[in-house]
């Protein structure tokens, strides 16, 4: 009997959601022991395909074969045999249970067996230690509900690694990880692929990382395969971008000089001063209108500053002053009405109103800022304009946000603030899980808002972004303390890595 060359083979997969056809006959195959990058533009069908392979949704037609039991063409069967483990963009954790239980529980297949708590703890510590040993020891008994998004991603990845699956599906696994953790994750993946023949299929938009870890790539475009199993050594970034159908917007090479903030002209309020000053021990930073300030480092430090700026928590150790007067926002609505906008990459928890249609999502902030009492007809027209302005293709304003892909939802969140012309715009990992073309669109949007006088505060764990966009960067160390301020040419990946203490 011929041993099938591939661990998993998908052929001619078709999937539609009502009138919208997402996958139109897609092929993909993964071999044991390989790291396979899965690339494609916004809404091209990647997450849908991953859900089909992992058995979470059904395909309309097409075949799916899994070795070693190639007769089993049911994805759910293969999952049952522990052959596949998946880490989705929307994490699937159990908030009321501890980290240990979340990692170890999937191993128990029979309900009437005993659940050994101390064994679960040991399993969890071992699995988490592969990526972050200190976190492992400290957090194994903590409830997942108490963890940050970043910590939850670690737990979910540890669970997948521990599952003993022979095929790992990762959808943007490094989206919430620091450089150091990403490095350790890749080390683990390399080891598992070599030692155990683990196959990894992962979706990512970070070309750097893809080249670091992947052997081959497959590109999906408009629901079909355009590039099938091409070695990464024999394809250039430009070719990949082109094959994805992204317009040829390479990383914008706007020279720094052009990013000087505009001080006059058609700004937000021509002539009205707009500056921000943040102070804490050791740091006294004054930011002029039109500046893009980057925040670099693991979440704790940047989050404390951002939460203070948007009114989610008290200023704590930060002193914030706007236009010379100290401010301390007691609640988010106060900050919003004072012109502070906020967009987060944690769309599900900090942005998208899942049960309300797109039109309400777009009008949400305007309603707060304007203290609107009634829903008005203009909001529909305005919503339409916003969708056009950002080239968002949605079925209808009355669809739910879930019908949009992750990247499009992100644009939605930015659109919410577009008309309100905030004087300060705080961004928390705004391109998390967003493809290259949409990323460029978002960069252009933000640059435009800065050019009109807004102050942008941008936290990202992707150093490349900060290097490309920021005039000034405030770096934080892993304990949350601000370490230094970088400006101009000293903003480089190496410089950031050094300042944040995270190995690049």
């Amino acid at each position: 009997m011929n041993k099938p060359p591939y661990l998993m083979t998908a052929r001619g997969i078709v999937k539609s959601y009502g009138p919208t056809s997402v996958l139109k006959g897609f092929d993909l195959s993964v071999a044991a022991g390989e790291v396979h990058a899965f690339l494609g533009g916004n809404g091209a069908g990647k997450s849908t395909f991953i859900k089909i392979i992992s058995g979470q949704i059904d395909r309309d037609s097409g075949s799916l074969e899994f070795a070693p039991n190639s007769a089993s063409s049911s994805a759910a069967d293969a999952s049952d045999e522990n052959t596949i483990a998946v880490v989705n963009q929307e994490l699937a954790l159990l908030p009321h249970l501890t980290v240990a239980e979340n990692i170890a529980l999937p191993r128990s297949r029979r309900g009437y067996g005993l659940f050994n708590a101390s064994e679960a703890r040991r399993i969890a510590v071992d699995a988490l230690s592969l990526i972050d040993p200190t976190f492992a020891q400290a957090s194994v008994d903590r409830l997942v509900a108490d963890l940050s998004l970043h910590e939850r991603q670690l737990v979910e990845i540890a669970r997948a690694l521990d599952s003993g699956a022979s095929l790992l599906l990762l959808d943007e696994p490094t989206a919430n990880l620091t450089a150091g953790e990403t490095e350790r994750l890749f080390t683990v993946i390399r080891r598992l692929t070599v030692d155990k023949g683990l196959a990894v299929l992962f979706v990512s938009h970070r070309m750097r990382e893809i080249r670091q870890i992947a052997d081959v790539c497959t590109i999906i475009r408009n629901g079909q395969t355009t590039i099938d199993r091409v070695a990464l050594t024999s394809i250039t970034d430009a070719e990949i971008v082109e094959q994805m159908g992204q317009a040829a917007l390479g990383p914008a090479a706007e020279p720094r000089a052009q990013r000087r903030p505009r001080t006059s002209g058609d700004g937000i309020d021509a002539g009205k001063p707009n500056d921000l000053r943040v102070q804490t021990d050791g740091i006294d930073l004054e930011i002029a209108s039109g500046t893009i300030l980057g925040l670099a480092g693991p979440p704790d430090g940047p989050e404390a500053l951002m939460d203070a700026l948007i009114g989610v928590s008290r200023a704590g150790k930060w002193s914030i002053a706007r236009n010379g007067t100290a401010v301390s926002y007691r609640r988010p609505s106060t900050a919003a009405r004072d012109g502070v906008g906020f967009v987060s990459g944690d769309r599900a928890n900090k942005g998208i109103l899942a049960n309300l249609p797109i039109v309400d999502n777009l009008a949400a902030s305007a309603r707060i800022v304007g203290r609107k009492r009634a829903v008005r007809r203009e909001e529909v027209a305005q919503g339409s304009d916003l969708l056009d302005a950002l080239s968002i293709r949605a079925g209808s304003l009355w669809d739910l946000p879930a019908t949009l892909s992750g990247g499009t939802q992100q644009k939605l969140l930015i659109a919410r603030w577009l008309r309100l012309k905030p004087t300060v715009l705080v961004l928390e990992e705004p391109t998390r899980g967003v493809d290259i073309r949409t990323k460029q669109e978002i960069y252009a949007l933000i640059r435009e808002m800065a050019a009109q006088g807004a102050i942008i505060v941008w936290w990202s764990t992707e150093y490349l972004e900060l290097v490309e966009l920021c005039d000034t960067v405030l770096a934080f160390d892993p304990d949350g303390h601000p370490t230094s301020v970088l400006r101009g040419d000293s903003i480089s990946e190496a410089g950031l890595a050094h300042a944040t203490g995270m190995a690049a």
Partner: protein
Amino acid sequence: MKTITQPVGEASRRRSSIRLLSLYRTEIAIAIAIIVMELAVGAIVPAALSVGNVANVAQAAAPLVIMAFGVLLVVITGGIDLSVGSVFSLTGMVTGLAMAHGFSALASSAAGLSIGVLIGAINGALVTYVGLAPFVVTLSTYAIAGSLSFIVTDGHSLPISDPNFWLLDAGTLIPGVPNYVLWCAVLLIVIEFGLRKLVAGRWLYAIGSSSSSARVIGIPVNRVRMTAYLLSGLLASFSGLVSVSYIGNAEATAGSSLMLQAIAAVVIGGASLFGGTGSAFGALLGALMITIIQNGANLIGVNSFWQGTVTGVVILIAVLIDRITKARR
């Protein structure tokens, strides 16, 4: 790679007992509250602390405790079972009816219990396989079963003819331990053990925490939910039997007030109506607290019309204290 050394012996045991204490934080707080309340009542009416009265309280609490255990299982999964009160009554009526027609106590009891299983199955099937909201489903079965309790005997109450039947409640299978205590103790141990130590117990919490994530992980969500509703029906039925055995009479209205009390008991004990938390120990303490409040109010001579207010206020205070102590963590 680092090897993780496990602490052994004394240090390990101490760590486990600290963990246990913090795990049962809410329950300990409620237990303390109960003791304090009982002492306060005893200060006003010394007879409250007599063995006779304590036995009274325990016997009155037993049906509520058993029903609360069933409701607990459903609440942990994030659902609710409003039909338990009617299952309670209907079980009593069916059992009484069977006995009136000459069936043995055992056969009649089996008939009664089958009511619980049947209604539990209907609830479970409609919630899991048809996907209807638990509130709506169990409210409907509550109404239907409630009216059936009246129809079964045309509104009359039924005396229990078999003198041995009362042994279900007050007899002593184990010498010295009244049966009503026995049932509560056995169920407490079995259910708490199941919730803490069995994989299926973890599954209940998992489903209540996030049923979508539970499904992704591979937990058989439908099967587990169905079982929870079945058990809730069965336990409500059993509690009806115990109560009928105690009273000696089956009445159609017997269970109506118990439903809210059972839910209150479970929530006082630490469960959340959103699912994901709760314990059998807590449910038992919650049921005890409610019973003690009523007993205390009776003994002190509180006007019966005020008892609802007393019960409600004390429950609110208990829940608030629990919330405050949790927030301060």
